[in-house]
């Protein structure tokens, strides 16, 4: 059906009617080259940012999985060997745990003798008054009596000369009432070599 008409008059004075007889159909949209561009960019970026690094990682994963298989197989073989020798891993672990706690047995006294010698070396009248030893953190807390206040620092230096002493500090140096001597408390950390 014609849908566009135009009526007019020519310069000569004749009337005319213009009728558009072409059917009213929608024309197909113009092909958009931008779509191609978007697709090309998407493909290129996917290759560059995803596929390329992914293929490298895939090789890495394959190698790790292959190693995993080999190790699992090797573990099975070792387990067979253990079974063959009739070794009970639980019992072995239990025994090793016991040996671990037995290694915690320490004789606190020999280092104490060294500390006593260090005190007497600085001041022959110096003596240990109170002893505390804590095996959990390998620390001695010694209350010491000395005739001179200055001797405490010298004892500290002397104690630090001992190989296994990791740190030695003193505090609370004071002269108890009724005595001419000074009392101070040493905190001495030792290493495992001390025992």
């Amino acid at each position, binding site marked *: 059906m014609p849908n566009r008409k135009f009526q007019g008059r020519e310069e000569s004075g004749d009337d005319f009617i213009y009728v558009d007889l072409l059917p009213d159909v929608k024309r197909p949209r113009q092909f958009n080259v931008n779509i191609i561009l978007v697709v090309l960019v998407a493909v290129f970026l996917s290759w560059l940012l*995803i596929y390329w690094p992914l293929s490298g990682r895939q090789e890495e994963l394959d190698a790790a999985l292959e190693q995993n298989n080999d190790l699992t197989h090797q573990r099975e073989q070792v387990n067979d060997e253990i079974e063959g020798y009739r070794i009970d891993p639980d019992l072995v672990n*239990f025994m090793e745990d016991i040996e671990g706690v037995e290694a915690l047995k320490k004789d606190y006294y020999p280092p104490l003798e060294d500390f006593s010698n260090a005190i007497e070396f600085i001041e022959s009248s110096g003596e240990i008054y109170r002893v505390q030893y804590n095996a959990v953190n390998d620390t001695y807390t010694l209350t010491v009596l000395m005739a001179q206040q200055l001797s405490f620092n010298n004892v500290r230096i002397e104690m630090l000369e001992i190989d296994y002493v990791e740190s030695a500090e003193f505090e609370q140096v004071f002269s108890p009432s009724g005595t001419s001597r000074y009392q101070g408390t040493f905190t001495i950390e030792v290493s495992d070599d001390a025992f």
Partner: protein
Amino acid sequence: MLSKRASDIIFVGIMILVVIGIVVMRFIVLGTMDERIEEVESENQQIQDEIMGLQGMVGEHRDTEMPSRSELNQRVPAIFSEDQLRFYVNAQLELAGILDSQERSVGVEISQNPNISGGSFGDAANQFDIVRVGIDIETNDIDEVRQFIDQMYEINQVFVLQNIRYDVPDEDEYVELTVNLLTFYDLD
């Protein structure tokens, strides 16, 4: 029909969305892959360590006769009885000559699962149930306490010294001495 300007804006917008989408996807895909690789490698390391441990175990124990579970339980008992432990400690105190006199005060206190953390003692606390035996002694001879500790180290059941505290005695002066020993149980 859209104007050329609007069409260009839509094109650039779509392009940006596509780029963002691909970048996001990259992080998701590669992140997942990296996680998986890390997981497998960590598992491999774990298996490797396990194999080395097992091989060490074979090398060390293939020619040795293992003690039985009951023999090991003499060192670390599987059953805890406070009365039995108290009796055991008192017997050792008596053997060391500390509990022989009625005049001396000796106290034994037993406490289960004392709070111990850090270092080798912390490791032991993770492996076993720990019982603390606290002993208060009046003594004028520190050597007898040392001998008692040595004696406790020698007996079958494992005892270790946790701490000791005393004033050094003058001559025949009696002083208070506190010694805490730890013993271990496999109660699981």
